């Protein structure tokens, strides 16, 4: 240290630095310095006491008192101006050098937060004590600006251990929400999972982990990842869904590999006639079922690609199954298969048609796939609700059904109206006339 007395005075007296008082509680170490100064200045007065001459007194600086060159850091001005000023290298006890404030940064938490809201540069470094940090956070939250809250959280994340951070945020809902969103946005998966684990938010933990699968493109890798999701703390229902997801992808990988092989071999008729437009990987279950009903309808239960196998494995309800199978077979115009779907034998051996989805739906799907009128007609006839039946029959021009239904309803007006829509001289026109002129029918209108 090479300070002149003048420098010292200036330093001590500068307004930036708190003046020393005896009740300066946080400054015990600086008291030592002050004591040293007091002691050394006293020596000036007691110096010519000869009694103490033979005892070598050592000053704080380590140099003997009374030695030729004046020791210590308190050198006179003349000494300072001399060519070889004496230096003192011994370590001194005092406040850390870094704490001397040489720039103004006195903003209170509320001022800081206000500056942050305006987007101004603001160093938060001075908020070092936990108390200060939390006060800053509180100010930020009461300002309502999420950007400011996040800025403070970024600082806290950097300067607090995660246990302390988590513990403090656990009881501060608004700040907690912001931290969670922030971690999601920057993709800090690890810390996010740690946080959920700490908070014992098991379901969110599981979901966050599961979400990662969306970032894995390779099917095999994704399948392996899904496997790791199965044991996670989902709710009971969700666990089943995760299991299904894994199983589905597993099956799809097998089917895809197999079918691609079949397709390229070029021997299978269905693939030649209807080349595949897309891969089955990552498709929903119903789509996979449709695919299976389209390309693998007749396969036995044993194979992974058979519809029946899918139905069993995933417990697909009858309604859904019939709907999908119908759509697939109708698209292929396989009317016999459609027929078979709805035909059941009762215990007496008689066949009858049943549909878990309502025959009006069946008719619509058939019509969408341009089924021939005879087929359509057959199913329109099976529609239970008479009004719906008549509507559909009229819409799809199933003449026989219209005529028969009108006759059954004894509705002459309706029949007459329909007559004007049919072709002149056609068979149906003839039939209508026959019915109209029948004396056995007691028309209601």
């Amino acid at each position, binding site marked *: 240290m090479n300070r002149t007395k003048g420098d010292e005075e200036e330093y001590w007296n500068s307004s930036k630095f708190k003046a020393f008082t005896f009740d300066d509680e946080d400054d015990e170490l600086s008291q030592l310095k002050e004591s040293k100064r007091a002691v050394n200045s006293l020596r000036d007065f007691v110096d010519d006491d000869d009694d103490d001459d033979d005892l070598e007194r050592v000053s704080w600086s380590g140099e003997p008192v009374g030695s030729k060159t004046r020791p210590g850091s308190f050198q006179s001005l003349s000494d300072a101006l001399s060519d070889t000023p004496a230096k003192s290298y011994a370590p001194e006890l005092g406040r850390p050098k870094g704490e001397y404030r040489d720039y103004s940064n006195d903003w209170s938490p509320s001022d800081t937060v*206000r500056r*942050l*809201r305006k*987007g101004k540069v603001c160093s938060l470094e001075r908020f070092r004590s936990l108390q200060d940090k939390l006060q800053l956070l509180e100010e930020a939250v009461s*300002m*309502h*600006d*999420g*950007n*400011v*809250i*996040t*800025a403070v959280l*970024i600082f806290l994340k950097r300067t607090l251990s995660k246990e302390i951070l988590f513990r403090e945020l*656990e*009881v501060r*809902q*608004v700040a*907690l*929400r*912001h931290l*969670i*969103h*922030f971690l*999601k*946005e*920057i*993709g800090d998966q690890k810390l996010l999972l740690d946080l959920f684990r*700490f*908070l*014992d*938010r098991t*379901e969110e933990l599981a*979901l966050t982990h*599961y*979400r990662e*699968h*969306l970032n894995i493109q390779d099917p095999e890798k994704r399948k392996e990842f899904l496997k790791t999701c199965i044991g996670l703390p989902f709710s009971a*229902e*969700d666990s089943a*869904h*995760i299991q*299904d*997801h894994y199983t*589905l992808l597993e099956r799809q990988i097998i089917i895809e590999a197999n079918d691609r092989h079949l397709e390229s071999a070029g021997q299978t008729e269905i693939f030649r006639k209807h080349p595949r437009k897309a891969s089955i990987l*990552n*498709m*929903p*279950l*119903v*789509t996979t079922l449709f695919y299976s009903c389209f390309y693998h309808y007749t396969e036995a239960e044993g194979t992974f690609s058979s519809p029946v196998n899918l139905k069993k494995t*995933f417990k*697909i309800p009858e*309604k*859904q199954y019939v*709907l999908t199978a119908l759509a697939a077979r109708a698209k292929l115009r396989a009317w016999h298969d459609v027929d078979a779907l709805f035909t059941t034998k009762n215990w007496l051996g008689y066949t009858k048609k049943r549909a878990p989805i309502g025959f009006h*739906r069946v008719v619509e799907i058939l019509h969408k796939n341009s089924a021939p009128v005879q087929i359509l007609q057959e199913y329109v006839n099976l529609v239970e609700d008479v009004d719906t039946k008549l509507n559909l029959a009229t819409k799809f021009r199933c003449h026989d059904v219209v005529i028969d239904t009108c006759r059954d309803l004894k509705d002459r007006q309706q029949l007459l109206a329909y007559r004007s829509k049919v072709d002149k001289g056609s068979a149906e026109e003839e039939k209508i006339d026959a019915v109209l002129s029948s004396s056995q029918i007691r028309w209601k209108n």
Partner: protein
Amino acid sequence: MRYIANLVNADKMAGRTRKYKVIFSPQKFYACEMVLEEEGIYGDVSCDEWAFSLLPLDVDLLSMELPEFFRDYFLEGDQCWINTVAQALHLLSTLYGPFPNCYGIGRCAKMSHELWRKLEEEEDGETKGRRPEIGHVFLLDRDVDFVTALCSQVVYEGLVDDTFRVKCGSVDFGPEVTSSDKSLKVLLNAEDKVFNEIRNEHFSNVFGFLSQKARNLQAQYDRRRGMDIKQMKNFVSQELKGLKQEHRLLSLHIGACESIMKKKTKQDFQELIKTEHALLEGFSIRESTNYIEEHIDRQVSPIESLRLMCLLSITENGLIPKDYRSLKTQYLQSYGPEHLLTFSNLRRAGLLTEQAPGDTLTAMESKVSKLVTDKAAGKITDAFSSLAKRSNFRAISKKLNLIPRVDGEYDLKVPRDMAYVFSGAYVPLSCRIIEQVLERQSWQGLDEVVRLLNCSELAFTDMTKEDKASSESLRLILVVFLGGCTFSEISALRFLGREKGYRFIFLTTAVTNSVRLMEAMSEVKA
């Protein structure tokens, strides 16, 4: 930010030196700065901010173009946009004088209002002593009324948005509409005279109106037959351009109508609307649920199926557990297992929930108090989030008369109330609230409604003693939708304005509809 960082770092690796400028709009977030710093490119890019906050989409519509607001705030609870809203309000108050009367409902409304007031205090003096030009400001959170946002729209402007997707006040009409082989981007606002006349009309009126107009136009064209040279010259220079313009617009809108009709017939729109109305009115719930189930089974549309489920959930205070489980399973089977995440989002946002067994207030209270004594702090948050908001739609609907009682047919040509925007079946809740508060100039008498809306402590009035407000300005009302607003609500309020002699100006964080709402909640890109 990471994308930008990758670009810059790739250049650095390849030894390319370039200058980079990043422009943030409307503002730069601290999180962005952090990423730039982390990626080591903070010094390599210069950053600018373009504080664009308000886009006038029409003479009475201002948009902040922040569609992300809805998800960020209502799903994630992130308040990052509240400052942006406060700034926008501040800008408006600087331009149009102080606002003497301010009302609001919702947590976000309250926070935005508080922050806005703080801003005004900090930069005071600018509005003091000025004559106010806008008499009332109304702030509303989107989650005060999810129902309206989830309904199918049937006023022309809403239908166009639902069908073609309006972006920033303009729409892309494809070849099927333009009757040519090209697509056309059309600006839809009051400048389009044809559009302006039909935009708020119920769709059933539009076709008739357009054909009448087409006939008139033809008659005008035909006038030229009896003209002499002088008249013809006049006609060509003065009128022809306008007629041509009108003709072009007419044919566009007729084309749009035809396209809409075709799509709706294909979708069996009739059946869909019937189901929606049943849900709103509260009958045939079992049938409606079956309809939704079938809708899912047939894989009609992932967004639409979701929307219907949410509508059912909100109107019925959550789905019964059996239905929730079964519909969820079927949804995952029809549209993909990854939608497990979507369901989690919807549950968190309160859009699609399950009725808890013993779902009475006392049961909830005892559940929560037990957890407090258990000191399972984390579980408290779970409990609170599940406690969040029972919907109470039926009770609110009754109290506010949202379902009009009609004797005979509801006349859509000459509507008598705001319910016309939903074919007479339902008055939009948000609009009704605004109507009631404006009538009372306070929340007086609406305590029960506010409580049912789960907004106790979150409905406020802020009146500054302002004797300078002219009666003219007191008729001008600025409505601020936080989280988005639909064209149906805008049409309904325009109607209210005409009825009561008000003029409404709309400020929204973004224009929205049921599709956008569902997409925002979807974790998987459909």
